[in-house]
C-alpha cells in the first residue's frame, strides 16, 4: 500500500453502490458488507430497489442501489454517504443529493455517452461541467478495463462488460485497506458451480484493486474503527429473514409446527420465500390465492393446532381486516406480520413508513383488540417475531408484528443465539378427555382460554364468529354476556402489560426532555439523542416495542419528564395513541412522511426545536 496517502480515520463510513437494475449492485453491496463484517466491523445495509422490475436502461426510473454502513456504531443506515459508486449518469443523478459534501464519487466514464446523459436528464456532462466540484470524483474507464480483463480470460463480450461492478469493488476494497482474501472466498462460495466465472470475477476485482493502488487515483484512504462486539458467533441478517427465523424458533420452542399462509407482496414477500425453503423443519408454507385466503388458512391452521402466521404489507393487512376480527372473537392465536410500506393504498410500495399503526390498533369492525408489537432493527425482527408468536399462543389472541421495508430489507450484524437460551413457550393446550373442558373457560389470572386441538379425544367442540356465551362458547345474544366477553377479550390483552418487558429509559430517568420512538426508527433516534448527550445536553430516550398493551410502567416513565417529543414516520399515529391512553400527559410530536427514514440531523433539529 502506498504510504503517501492521507489516511482518514473514521468511526463509521457509508458506501452506496448505485447503477442500473442489471448492474449487480446488490452483489457488490453484499460482498462489501460481508467483507467488512468479517474484518471486524459492525455493519448495516439497505437495498434501494426501483419500483419497476427492469425499467429502461440508463434511466433514473431504473436505478437500483445498495447502501452499506460499516464501522463501530451502525445501528442505522447513515444519512448520507461518504463514498458513492455510480455505474452510470442516471444513478449519479438520482443519488448525488445523498453524498456528503467532500465525499468520494467513483463512476465509470465509459457510461457517459450522449444518449445515456440525455436519458438521465443531463444537458451537459456532469463530469465535465464543473457541477461536481464539491466532491472528490474518480472516473476511470471502468467498463473498458473490466471487459478487457475478462475477455482475455475467455469470457464473451457481453458477460465481460458485466464484470465492471467487480472492478469497482476492487477499487473500493483498496481505499478501505481490505484484503482481497475474504471477498475471494465469498465469490468462490457464491459461484460454487461456476468455477470459471468465480475466477474471472476475482481477476477483474484484483485488476481494480491494483489499478487503484498503482495509479494512485485516490487522494486518501479510510481507516474505519472496528468494533468490540460481545463475544459470540455472528452473521449478517436482513429483517425479513430474521422474522422468518424468529417464527421458526418459536415453533421449535413451543412444540407447535409452523404454518404460514401468505400472498406475495412487496416488501414482505421475502418472509414467504424464506420459509418456503424450510420444509425440512416441518414448516408448511401455503401460497394462497389472495391475502384473505392467506389469513383464513392461517386461522384454520391455528384451530388445527399450528403456530400459524401470515405475512404481508399495508394493502394486504387491509384485506385481512375481517378475518382478523374472526381470530379475535374465536380467540385463536395467529401472528400477522406487517412489513409496513408507504401508503395509502398501493402508495409507495418500495418505500418505508410507519403508517399502518392505526390499522393495527383500530382497523376492525366492533371491539376487537389484538396484541401489537414492533421490531426496531433487522436483528430485532428475530426476537420480536419470536415474542409475537409467544404472546399470541400464550394469550390465545392474534398478535400483529409491525416491521417496515427499511428494517425488513436492510441488514445488520446478528449475534447468533442458541435456541435453548430463548424463553420457553407454553401454549395452553387442553388435555385429552378433560371432563371439565369448556371452550371458553378461562384461566382466572390471565383470562386465557384453552386450545383443544381437533383430533384430541373427548374435546369435541364448536367455535365461531358469532358472540359466544362465556364458558361453553355456544352462540349467545345475551346483552350482559356480550359485555362480559368484550371485557374479557380486552382485559386478557391488557393484563400482558405486566408480563412484557418494562419500558426502559436511555439517559436520565427524569428531567426536561424525553424523546419517544417506536418500531424501526430506534437506531436514528437513539443516535440523535446520543450525539446530543455527548454534547452535554440532558435528553433521554425511550423506545417502544410493545405497543398493545404498552408496558405497565409506561405512565411512570413518561410522567417524570417535563416535555415529551414523539418521533415517527407518519402524521402522528403513536402520539395520538399515547394521548388517548394517558390523557393527563402532554405530548409533542415530530413527524415525517416521505417514504424515507429519519436522518439524524433532522431529528437533532426537531429535538432542538422543542417548545
Amino acid at each position, binding site marked *: 500500500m502506498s504510504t503517501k496517502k492521507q489516511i482518514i480515520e473514521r468511526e463509521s463510513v457509508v458506501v452506496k453502490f448505485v447503477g442500473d437494475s442489471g448492474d449487480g449492485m446488490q452483489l457488490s453491496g453484499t460482498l462489501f458488507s*460481508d467483507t467488512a463484517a468479517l474484518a471486524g466491523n459492525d455493519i448495516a445495509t439497505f437495498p434501494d430497489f426501483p419500483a419497476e422490475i427492469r425499467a429502461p436502461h440508463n434511466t433514473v426510473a431504473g436505478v437500483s442501489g445498495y447502501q452499506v454502513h460499516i464501522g463501530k456504531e451502525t445501528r442505522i443506515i447513515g444519512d448520507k454517504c461518504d463514498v458513492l459508486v455510480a455505474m452510470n449518469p442516471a444513478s449519479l443523478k438520482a443519488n448525488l443529493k445523498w453524498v456528503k459534501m467532500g465525499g468520494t464519487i467513483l463512476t465509470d466514464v465509459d457510461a457517459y455517452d450522449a444518449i445515456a446523459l440525455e436519458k438521465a436528464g443531463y444537458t451537459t456532462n456532469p463530469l465535465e461541467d464543473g457541477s461536481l466540484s464539491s466532491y472528490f470524483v474518480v472516473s476511470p474507464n471502468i467498463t473498458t478495463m473490466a471487459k478487457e480483463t475478462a475477455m482475455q480470460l475467455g469470457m464473451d463480450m457481453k458477460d465481460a462488460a458485466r464484470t465492471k461492478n467487480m472492478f469497482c469493488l476492487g477499487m473500493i476494497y483498496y481505499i478501505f485497506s481490505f484484503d482481497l482474501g475474504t471477498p475471494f472466498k465469498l465469490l468462490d462460495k457464491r459461484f460454487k458451480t461456476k468455477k470459471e466465472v468465480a475466477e474471472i470475477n476475482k481477476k477483474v476485482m484484483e485488476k481494480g484493486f491494483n489499478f487503484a493502488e498503482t495509479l494512485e487515483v485516490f487522494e486518501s484512504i479510510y481507516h474505519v474503527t472496528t468494533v468490540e462486539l460481545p463475544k*459470540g458467533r455472528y452473521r449478517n441478517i436482513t429483517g425479513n429473514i430474521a422474522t422468518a427465523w424468529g417464527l421458526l424458533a418459536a415453533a421449535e420452542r413451543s412444540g407447535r409446527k409452523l404454518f404460514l399462509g401468505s400472498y406475495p407482496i412487496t416488501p414482505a414477500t421475502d418472509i414467504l420465500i424464506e420459509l418456503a425453503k424450510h420444509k425440512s423443519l416441518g414448516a408448511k408454507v401455503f401460497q394462497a390465492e389472495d391475502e*384473505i*385466503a392467506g389469513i383464513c388458512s392461517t386461522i384454520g391452521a391455528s384451530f388445527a393446532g399450528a403456530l*400459524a402466521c401470515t405475512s404481508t404489507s399495508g394493502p394486504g393487512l387491509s384485506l385481512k381486516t375481517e378475518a382478523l376480527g374472526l381470530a379475535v372473537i374465536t380467540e385463536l392465536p395467529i401472528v400477522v406480520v406487517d412489513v409496513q410500506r408507504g401508503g395509502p393504498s398501493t402508495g409507495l410500495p418500495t418505500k418505508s413508513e410507519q403508517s399502518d399503526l392505526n390499522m393495527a390498533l383500530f382497523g376492525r369492525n366492533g371491539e376487537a383488540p389484538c396484541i401489537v408489537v414492533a421490531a426496531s432493527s433487522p436483528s430485532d425482527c428475530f426476537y420480536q417475531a419470536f415474542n409475537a408468536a409467544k404472546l399470541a399462543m400464550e394469550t390465545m389472541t392474534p398478535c400483529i408484528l409491525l416491521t417496515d421495508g427499511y428494517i425488513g430489507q436492510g441488514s445488520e450484524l446478528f449475534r447468533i443465539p442458541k435456541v435453548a437460551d430463548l424463553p420457553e413457550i407454553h401454549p395452553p393446550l387442553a388435555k385429552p378427555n378433560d371432563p371439565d373442558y369448556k371452550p371458553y373457560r378461562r384461566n382466572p389470572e390471565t383470562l386465557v382460554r384453552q386450545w383443544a386441538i381437533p383430533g384430541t379425544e*373427548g374435546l369435541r367442540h*364448536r367455535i365461531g*364468529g*358469532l358472540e359466544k356465551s362465556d364458558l361453553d362458547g355456544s352462540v349467545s345474544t345475551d346483552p350482559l354476556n356480550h359485555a362480559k366477553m368484550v371485557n374479557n377479550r380486552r382485559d386478557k390483552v391488557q393484563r400482558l402489560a405486566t408480563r412484557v418487558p418494562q419500558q426502559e429509559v436511555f439517559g436520565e430517568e427524569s428531567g426536561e426532555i424525553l424523546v419517544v420512538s417506536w418500531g424501526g426508527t430506534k437506531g436514528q433516534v437513539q443516535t440523535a439523542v446520543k450525539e446530543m448527550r455527548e454534547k452535554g445536553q440532558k435528553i433521554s430516550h425511550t423506545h417502544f416495542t410493545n405497543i398493545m398493551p404498552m408496558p405497565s410502567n409506561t405512565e411512570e416513565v413518561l410522567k417524570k419528564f417535563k416535555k415529551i417529543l414523539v418521533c415517527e414516520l407518519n402524521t402522528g399515529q403513536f402520539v395520538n395513541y399515547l394521548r388517548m391512553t394517558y390523557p393527563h400527559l402532554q405530548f409533542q410530536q415530530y413527524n415525517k412522511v416521505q417514504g424515507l427514514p429519519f436522518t439524524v440531523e433532522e431529528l437533532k433539529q426537531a429535538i432542538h426545536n422543542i417548545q
Partner: protein
Amino acid sequence: MSYKTIERTTEQLTKEDFASDQMVKWCPGCGNHAILAAVENVFPQIGYKKENFCVVSGIGCSSRFPYYMNTYGFHSIHGRANAIATGVRLFNRGLSVWVPTGDGDSLAIGGNHFIHVIRRNIDLNIMLFNNEIYGLTKGQYSPTSPMGKITKSSPQGTIEHPFTVGELVLGAQGTFFARVIDNKPQFISQVMLEAAKHDGTSIVEILQNCVIFNNGAHKYITDKEVRDNNQLYLEDGKPMLFGKDKEKGIILGNNGLQVVKLGENGITEKDILVHDMKSQNPGIHLMLAKMKPPYFPIALGVIRSVESPTYDQLLDEQIKTAQENPATVKCVDDLLNSGDTWEI
C-alpha cells in the same frame, strides 16, 4: 389407490355419536333437516375416529351446520369456509374435513376460494346447499338464481346468467362432482360416502329447498309428475337411461348430447352413452352437468370422479424429501448457523 391419512375407529359408531345437543334452528320444512339427517347417517359409516371429523362452515343458513353435528366444528365468516378448511386440512393431516356451504357462501363472496381449493385438489368434502337464494339475509338472489327471478333485491327479475355449479367445478379442474336432491336422504348418504372416499376435493351439490324465500325452486325436477322424465340417475359404467320405464336415454352426437327414445329410429340400449365418471376428458362431464329440463333431464349422482394428485399428498412428499435430504437443516440452531457466520 387411496391416500388417506386419517386414523380409523375401532368402535362401532352410530348416528347418535354425531348428534349434537344444540337446538336445530332451521325453519320447519327446510330442506336442510333432511340433509343433516343424511350426514349424521353417513359419518359412522365412513369409519374414522369420531374426534377426527371437523366441520368448517362460513355464514348462511346452511353454514349453521357445524352446530348441529357433534364434531370439532368451526362456524366462521361469510365465504371463507373453504380457505379456513384449507388451513385445517393442510396443517392437520389426521382430520376428515367437511365444508357445508351455500350458493352465496361459496359461489358469491367465497367464489375465489372455491375455485382455488378445487384447482389445488385439497382433500376436503364440500357440501354445497344450493337453494338458489340467500336464505339467512332473507331472500336476495344468488349466483345460481335463474335469470329473471324476482326476489327482494330484483323486483324486476334478475338480469344475471346463473352459474351451473358443475360447470364451474369442472372449469376449475374439479376431480369430483356429484349432484343430489334434499328429498332423498338415502341417496345423499350414498353419494356422500363416495365423496368421503375420494382423494381430493369433492363437491356435492345438494338441490335444497328454502321453504321461506324460494319455495319450490327445484319443483320442476322434484315434482311427482315430472321427476321421472326430468331426473337421470347416473351410474358409473351404466348406460344413461331415464323415464318411468327407463325408456329414454342420452346419446352423444356431433353437436353434443341428445335425448332419444329406445325403440325410436332404431335406437337400442347399445347406442346409449355409457357413463364414465373416471374419464379424464371433462368435456362430456361438462355437458352432463349442464343438462336441464325442458330439453334434458338433470343428471344426479356422481358426474365426475377422477384420480389426480392431491395438494396434501404432494406436500407430505416434499416435506419427506426435504427431511431426508442430508444437506437440509434439521433444527433452528442449524439454520441460525448456516451460511456465512463468524466468531468474534
